[in-house]
């Protein structure tokens, strides 16, 4: 913890970074994102099991990007990132939203975070995104901090739910998702929280022609959720922020995770793991399976 504060202070002092995006303690079971721009404020930075936001989402916001521009030169943006958050940063770099040299990654070793604020960190309260996670150390970082501890072992809840859904008949599944999607109030919190939903104008806001019906009825809700899940297929890094942000508790991770599994099984691809491989969507292999096609 102290080394994080020290490093951030140094980075800000010697003008390596214009700001550090990190976490600030609110109470003992709660943190909130903070953007530190002065060396003095660096002492506010913390990192623990309650730092569950994926801060990579801030890197795509123009307001934050502008912080880096100082007196005609561009400094780096520092970011306190868990290994899983770094996957998002990698994906953003691959998708030209960010340049590797524009960001200073303070990569934290991680052994899991809580499901939501206000809970004690334990096996039972381990966030669902952490149960199948195998990234406990950063793949890419400029500094690597924090101790390595064992992650509590708990069953993969999301995968079990997916398997349960897959056991249903087509009709039951359609009903199930219709019911879930019907809760949608089109607040687009899922979109705002997602680090990979960086479009300047979302497809659902395009009106000529109208791509996705935006009024809240089953059909529009269905389209929106299909399109959202499809646009993240092969790209989602599984941070689960969409589901956490959803005020109506729509189980979005059931969709995202399912498509992540497809990417893994059909193309042996996991998003955000390597800067050197081309993105799954946007590349092709002549040898991709042809099974689907008559």
């Amino acid at each position, binding site marked *: 913890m102290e080394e994080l504060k020290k490093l951030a202070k140094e980075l800000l002092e010697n003008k390596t970074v214009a700001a550090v995006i990190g976490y600030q303690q609110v109470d003992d079971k709660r943190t909130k994102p903070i953007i530190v721009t002065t060396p003095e404020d660096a002492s506010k930075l913390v990192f623990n099991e309650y730092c569950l936001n994926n801060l990579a989402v801030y890197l795509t916001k123009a307001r934050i990007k502008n912080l880096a521009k100082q007196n005609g030169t561009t400094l780096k943006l520092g970011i306190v990132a868990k290994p899983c958050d770094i996957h998002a940063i990698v994906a953003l770099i691959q998708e*030209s*939203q960010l340049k590797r040299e524009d960001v200073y990654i303070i990569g934290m070793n991680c052994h899991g975070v809580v499901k939501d604020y206000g809970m004690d960190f334990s096996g039972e309260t381990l966030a669902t995104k952490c149960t199948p996670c195998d990234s406990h150390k950063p793949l890419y970082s400029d500094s690597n901090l924090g101790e390595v501890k064992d992650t509590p072992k708990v069953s993969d809840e999301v995968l079990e739910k997916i398997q349960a859904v897959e056991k249903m008949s087509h009709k039951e599944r359609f009903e199930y998702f219709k019911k879930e999607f019907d809760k949608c109030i089109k607040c687009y919190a899922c979109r705002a929280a997602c680090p990979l939903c*960086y*479009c*300047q104008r*979302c497809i659902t806001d395009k009106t000529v*022609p109208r791509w996705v019906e935006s009024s809240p009825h089953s059909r529009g809700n269905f389209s929106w959720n299909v399109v959202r899940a499809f646009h993240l297929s092969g790209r989602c890094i599984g941070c689960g922020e969409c589901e956490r942000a959803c005020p109506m508790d729509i189980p979005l991770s059931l969709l995202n995770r399912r498509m992540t599994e497809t990417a893994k099984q059909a193309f042996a691809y996991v998003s955000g793991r390597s800067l050197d491989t081309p993105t799954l969507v946007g590349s092709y292999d002549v040898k991709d399976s042809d099974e689907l096609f008559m």
Partner: protein
Amino acid sequence: MKIGVFICHCGENIGRTVDCPRVSKACQWLPGVEVSLDYKYMCSDPGQNMIKDEIRKKKLDAIVVGSCSPHMHEKTFRKAAVDAGINPFLVEIANLREHCSWVHDDIDAATDKAIDLVRMAVEKVKRNQPLTTIEVPVTKRTLVIGGGIAGIQAALDVANAGYEVVLVEKEPSIGGHMSQLSETFPTLDCSQCILTPRMVEVYQHPKIKLMTYSEVEKVEGFIGNFTVTIRKKARHIDESKCTGCGLCTTKCPVKKKAFNSFEENLAYRPAVYVPFPQAVPNIPVIDETVCTYYKTGKCQMCVKVCGREAISFDQQDTLVTEEIGAIIVATGYKLYNIEKKPEGSMIKGYGEYGYGKYKDVVDGLQFERIASASGPTSGEFKRPSDGKEPKKIVFIQCVGSRDDSKGFSYCSKICCMYTAKHAMLYKHKVHDGEAYVFYMDIRSGGKMYEEFVRRAIEEDGVKYIRGRVSKITEKNGKYIVKGEDTLASMPIEIDADMVVLATAMIAQTEASELAQTIGIPYDKYGFYNEAHPKLRPIESTTGGVFLAGACQSPKDIPESVAMASAAAAKAMVLFGSDKLEREPVVAKVNELFCAGCFLCKKVCPYGAVEVKEMKDRNGVVYKEIAYVNEGLCQGCGTCTASCPSKSIELAGFNNEEVFAQIAAL
């Protein structure tokens, strides 16, 4: 918007199953339709005049023609519309013939469908934007890939018309397979005698830039405006100094390390070599893999004997870029080597024929070298194993061709003819020899071809046996050929001294890689696809890329030459004007909303999407977005479907137009 609907009966073709008057009547009431008419032949002059008159009279903005496929008469109706003052892209075709009347029987159902199709077209045309055709300049230079007879012919034709040609050949000399042949069917004239003058003509032609021992590495750009990168492999001989005296090749001490590929591995060649005496250019190449100098740093015999100091061991590959307007692909074929089984497959290969195991079982090209006066045996028939004159030769046709289970389904086309030629050449020289040919069918379509085969059978006494060979075994220096004579329904065994396999002609090893480099489609065998099997056999589907010779499918010499001249003519058609017109079906980026994820750039098959910097009024870059180079874009629309925020649209097929069609379902 005022739309005119014109329903064509196409004589009886549409009218028989689609009630055209009912269609035109129903379409009258479609929102936006001003006039709806039907007529016997819309594409005829009166039909077109009817359209023009209606456009002028009713001041129509757009028209829909319910007729045959847009691939047939779209151009006709667009022209009519232009004549009457409408933008050609405000014309839509509803395909009532190929997609409706011809494929359905029930008049009511077909008429209902026809109405639906017209309605969809009406909805689309309402959203169509007027577009103007794009003009691009043309570079009047041709790249010919492959210096075999097809490439030579194409290069000479284009050059003789006064246009510059770059001829690229991957081997050290041009000439291709034809230079390896002894005599040619059906005239039995000497292959080299007719070929070498053309090779020399290429070499001396002021308009032809000959690049041998070179390969095409990269092709960028589009019709009329290609930029081609060519790798000039290091010969290790300074071409400007070498006189072609050949002293280095005779003095090279490396004698038996490398097979002579020109002699089809029936002889050896030194480390510094000219593929064959008539090679063009007559400049040797040093084979790094066997040269003693590259292994030990010693020897340098060639350096010592060369009076011109032309040997250059440290010469490196160089990359040359050329600006090209048209590309003629003439990369030819190779023979199926039945010895080697293609990887991962157990069923292919012909182990039962023992090729590669038995020295006297040879393929067609090896036999050409044995028969050739300039070959390793100086034209005397000697078998490779012991140099004895074979008294009995068995020729087996269709080895690998027309064989679904072990080889390829297609017919290699030339084997019937060259096998007859082989047998004939053999009989002419070895009068007491016996020649047997196992065949499936004799396919001898062509001028004087059938007569040629008959001559082999009737005058030269070649014995033709209709049937397949099951196995070749070796016994006491003889090859026991077991087969079946299907006409006599008898198993047959021949103890031959030598066996010649007419193996299949297949695509070059790296045919598919080159296709991907150039960007042309190929079939499952690796042969390049023509744009249309009947009406566009010379063009590839990529604009400005033409095909010549056996790279497209197995062919004999006259056919390859004809195709080469046709490809040359196609290139010259392109050069006939200074500017090219092309359809304005290109993608366009909405700069306001593009988030710069560049997925469009990743998926674009043509590299047409570029990065554009958006600057504010102070000249500071505030974002990078995608930009479509209209010249490069071919209008596939893959980018539009990929764009997550729908900030890129394809003119002529934009999303609104598609949605309108869906909505009209």
